[in-house]
């Protein structure tokens, strides 16, 4: 095997290399997951408690106090939770991915591997949390005696979409974060802000028609609406136009993220 190192040389077999290092990906993901709840008393239960309490608060504030309408006759709590699942996944994945390179600085500056592994492996943590929270959803469906239709089978498609929606900006910001630590302070803000501009605590149907186009530029709108459609069925009809725009925005951010990441990857060790 011959390797040639030259300035600015694009790695011809980058993607093959990435496949070569899949074991490292597994190990890093496993490390992040197993370390997450170490030395806590209730451990993994944190992944259940946090979304559950948030769901309660949202149901009370938006459903009971503001009296916003639910999707058809779906219980408000169930609608909130079906939106919160992808949102929590997105926000955790985005924050983990954005900080991943800086928090793994010791690895980046001492060992070679395709750097793309670090942010993608950190998203796995968010996915495990997502799976755990899914248990709550199943519990709630049993409680409300709600049976999903056949469209639930399409749910994995939207999970993959949520994964890409978080990975795109995540890669972009983590690459920038290596150079400019300002971005560390941007992420909590995006996450906080995004919670209110995404249909988490309310249904997309409350958005006035003239604002719909602008509103759907937020890639999470498509993902959350898709989730609600899969879980709650025809009661929460999916707007295909909105969904298409979200999909395009997601694809654009993913392209931007990967491009930026690949372009700056080689200088990470010098700048971190």
């Amino acid at each position, binding site marked *: 095997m011959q390797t040639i190192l030259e300035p600015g*040389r694009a790695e011809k077999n980058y993607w093959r290399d990435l496949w070569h290092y899949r074991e490292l990906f597994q190990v890093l993901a496993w490390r992040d997951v197993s370390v997450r709840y170490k030395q806590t008393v209730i451990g993994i239960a944190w992944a259940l408690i946090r979304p559950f309490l948030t769901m309660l608060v949202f149901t009370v504030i938006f459903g009971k106090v503001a009296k916003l309408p639910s999707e058809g006759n779906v219980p408000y709590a169930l609608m909130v939770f079906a939106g919160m699942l992808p949102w929590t996944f997105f926000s955790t994945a985005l924050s983990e991915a954005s900080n991943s390179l800086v928090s793994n600085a010791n690895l980046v500056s001492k*060992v070679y591997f395709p750097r793309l592994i670090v942010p993608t492996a950190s998203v796995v943590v968010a996915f495990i949390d997502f799976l755990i929270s899914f248990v709550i959803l199943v519990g709630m469906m049993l409680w409300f005696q709600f049976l999903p239709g056949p469209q639930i089978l399409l749910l994995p498609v939207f999970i993959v979409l949520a994964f890409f929606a978080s990975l795109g900006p995540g890669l972009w910001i983590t690459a920038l974060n290596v150079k400019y630590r300002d971005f560390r302070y941007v992420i909590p803000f995006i996450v906080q802000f995004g919670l209110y501009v995404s249909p988490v605590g309310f249904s997309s149907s409350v958005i006035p028609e003239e604002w719909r186009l602008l509103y759907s530029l937020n890639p999470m709108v498509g993902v959350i609406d898709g989730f609600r459609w899969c879980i709650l069925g025809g009661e929460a009809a999916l707007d295909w136009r909105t969904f298409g725009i979200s999909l395009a925005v997601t694809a654009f951010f993913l392209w931007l993220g990967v491009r930026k990441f690949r372009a700056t990857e080689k200088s990470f060790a010098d700048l971190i």
Partner: protein
Amino acid sequence: MSDTVISVENLSKSYFIGHGGPREKNPMLRDMIVRHARNYARKAIDMARGRQIIQGDSVEEFWALKDVAFEVKRGEVVGIIGRNGAGKSTLLKILSRITEPTTGRITLNGRVSSLLEVGTGFHPELTGRENIFLNGAILGMPRADIKRKFDEIVDFAGVEKFLDTPVKRYSSGMYVRLAFAVAAHLEPEILIIDEVLAVGDAEFQKKCLGKMKDVAGQGRTVLFVSHNMAAVRSLCSSCLWLDCGLIREAGSTAEILDHYLRSSTKDVKASEVVLPEDLTKEFQVRKARVTKMDGEICSDFLCDEEISLELQCEVRNPVPGLYGYLQISLRDGTEVLVSDSFDGGGNPVDNLSNGHHTLRITVPARSLAPGEYVAYFNFASPMSAAGFSVDCLGDLLSFQITDPNTRRGNNRGGFFGTLLPWQITPCSLRPAMASDK
């Protein structure tokens, strides 16, 4: 396939570093605001252009490596030596693909594993067992390999009892032993190592050195950076000496080390030196000092005093043919006086018995001119099993001589402080010289 596994051509690497401007003692608020505003503006422009942010008032390009070129053949073990900041670590980082060169080209034939630090990626919360797998994967070992060698690794580190304890509870010795054990079981074609032998106690260091010798003996190509000259000497067949980002010299280990040790430490400023134990040496100087005749450690002498150079030696195995060599030079490197242990008639260090001994060399009063001196020591033997050089100490001690008691004093010049008698005798005859005319 060609026999050259590493080929480096015109390799250079530059970094940008920032400098703080001169700081006034009592800065005026106005000046500070202007300076900060200027810094902010520069940072904002840098960011808009996508450049890195550099702290400081002015920016300079710094070449960590400049036009480095060399080749390494299959199975060679090459030592890379040089002072701190010579560019050794930068070279290793480029070779292990962590960072890319600014100019130049490197061709590597084979799978490279690099070990720039022991325990890279160790996670304090994970147990010893988990960290072995984590660290192995980070170093590029396939999982199956780690499983196969697991018992061997644990055995080498000697941590069986604590395998399921988080490593944050480990003693620092256990931690580095485990980390080194994982790394020692790597099996790449090209191995790049930076300063990792400096871990653990003397016994473990010896074990590590042995393991490294095994690795080197298996026909792997190894690049090895170290400040431990004993390790370089025993492991490497050839050496590369880096100085300020340039290759100063390359060649056989013995030759390069000799030159390096001679050159590198003319700036010693010590009248007492304690040397770390090195169990690989049969004979070792453990302590050296410059004293007055009454035993008081001293660095400033009068020309009229005798100077005693005292070495405390430890003999672990009598070395046949051992002799000592002393060279006293001026700070600028000019050789002034050379002596060896045969000078006293006989050779007191030859086959010296096991145990501790004190060796004293006395420089007579008024032998050296006023000035600053450095003493270089080397112990060697043509008959030693470990190689010619037994304990090369290099420039070890320094002292200064002043001469306030003569008229010429410190301005005497020349090499000697010897006072020559000037005698005159009355003479009634005409001088002989005059009669020649």
